[in-house]
């Protein structure tokens, strides 16, 4: 578990967590949260991590030489309000229906509910979800998320979730998909492809 849901919509959700660990959550991470009473897991991409303003911290920030005890108390013991915004890019059917794939790329039928538990996707889950790359449309068209940067980092994470020998092939296919989605935006396409080192 990396956090609990604070608010949600079909297009995404925000969860709260303790101070970020070095590895989770990170920008571009794949995360999942149950919805529809566990019938689906909404898959999302972390696109913003905000450490909220905290009046108690202000006088400590102004202190010149802050003893370690205060720093540790603030970081380890206090419920520092950290909000993580997630863009919904698909969902997993936990009760596979006939010949439908376990993963659907698109907006979920219902958003998750307050206090639901957010977990980081495993490497296998990331690899399985990114077998198809239709989710890139939602990323590149997201009105609030930095779509270009998010697409690059998400594809790098998806590549890293694969066997070393499969990574180059995956990124080439991803590049083709991005080119199909941005046929009239060559500068943006070029920036993404360059970041993917294609």
């Amino acid at each position, binding site marked *: 578990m990396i956090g609990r849901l604070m608010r949600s919509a079909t297009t995404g959700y925000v969860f709260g967590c303790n101070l970020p660990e070095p590895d989770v959550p990170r920008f571009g991470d794949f995360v999942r949260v149950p919805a529809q009473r566990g019938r689906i897991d909404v898959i999302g991409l972390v696109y913003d991590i905000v450490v909220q303003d905290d009046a*108690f911290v202000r006088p400590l920030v102004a202190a010149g030489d802050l003893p370690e*005890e*205060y720093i540790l*108390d603030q970081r380890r*013991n206090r419920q520092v309000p950290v909000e993580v915004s997630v863009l919904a890019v698909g969902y997993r059917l936990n009760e596979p229906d006939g010949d439908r794939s376990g993963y659907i790329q698109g907006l979920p039928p219902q958003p998750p509910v307050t206090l639901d538990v957010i977990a980081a996707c495993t490497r296998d889950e990331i690899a399985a979800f990114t077998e198809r790359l239709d989710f890139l449309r939602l990323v590149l068209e997201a009105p609030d998320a930095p779509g270009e940067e998010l697409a690059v980092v998400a594809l790098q994470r998806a590549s890293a979730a694969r066997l070393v020998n499969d990574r180059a092939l995956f990124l080439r296919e991803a590049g083709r998909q991005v080119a199909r989605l941005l046929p009239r935006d060559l500068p943006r396409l070029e920036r993404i492809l360059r970041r993917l080192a294609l």
Partner: protein
Amino acid sequence: MALELNRVLPEVDLLSANAAERLAELSARLPSARAGLVEIGSADAALRARVQTALGMRWAGAIPTEEPVDASYPCPSAPARFDVLAADGSQIYPDRHGIALYYLINTGSIAFRHGSGQAPDCRTEPRLHYADADLYEEDGGQIPSFKIDADRDLAELGELVQLAGEQVATPTVALIDNGLLLYITLQSPNRGYADAIVEGYLAHLDALKAAGANPAGVVDRPRAASVVRLLRLAELGADQINDQALRDLGPYRHMTDGLLFADLAPGHRSALFEHGSPANQDSYKPRGHSIYLFYVRSGDTLLRVEVPAWVAQNPDRLDFVHAAIVKQGELTGGFPYVLMRAHEIAVVTHAERRLLDEALHTALIRRGLSPSISQKQQGKAWTSSAKQKYG
């Protein structure tokens, strides 16, 4: 209909004018009050005799100690390594319009180890009370809120006892965000109940003393007039002392100790006084825990600090408490950091209360009950939620 602020604003203006006028009036009388303190200096035999007479009339003023009453003492240096324990409590009072009758006391505490480089230890101790014996008086009435407050005060000091353990390893001050004299002694018409609570409180002070900790009650923005009462008493002739004269503060009406000591230099404390309150003299003092008080300028804040006799009468312990409190306020405008944290840990938010009630609702349904709030409460929920959404 919301509060029609425009109809109150003229009175808000009058209120502020009144406050300014009162402060100006008090400030004009302040020099003579401070001069009165200087005049007393070290309390002489005549004043001490008057104090004894007044105590016999249940006078609640400040009793001078050996220190000159106008003295001011700079902040001693704090040890490089010391511990500060703090506890605070919050409560949910019984709500007869709620889905079930209960009350909750949540105690939050922190053990802060100055100079250790370690993260402080924090914990909470929630207690849910729902038995008939907890909720109802002998006459069948619902438990009054002041008894729950007393229970919370007792729990706070009990938490400090837990944190101190059997023996503290380093110099340790144990703070609560209140005076050390329980209000229950003033509020409860049931003397037996008040005595039982005070007995528990004194047992906790025994335990802290045995553990070597130094308890202190800290009051921010003190409104008491204990030293002001002493000033007034000093002006009365021996033959003028009676109940009426002791109640009347004369030229010091509305003046507080806070105003009197507002000019303390940074870090300085006032002289030490013994609390003249009847509760102190009747209950605490015979058990060796007579409460003493002093005022201290900590950062931008003037604090009233109450300590038991065995701290007050030991210069090393008194210096340590003084230094530790000032040190604890260095980063937080003067009020001890640990007390702010203890409050933060203890407080039960509206959201948490809602979650508790939801859990209770579910549990009652599992038992085949049909929990519901009163129609009055329902109405409040409807109207306040409408305001939140659309108002």
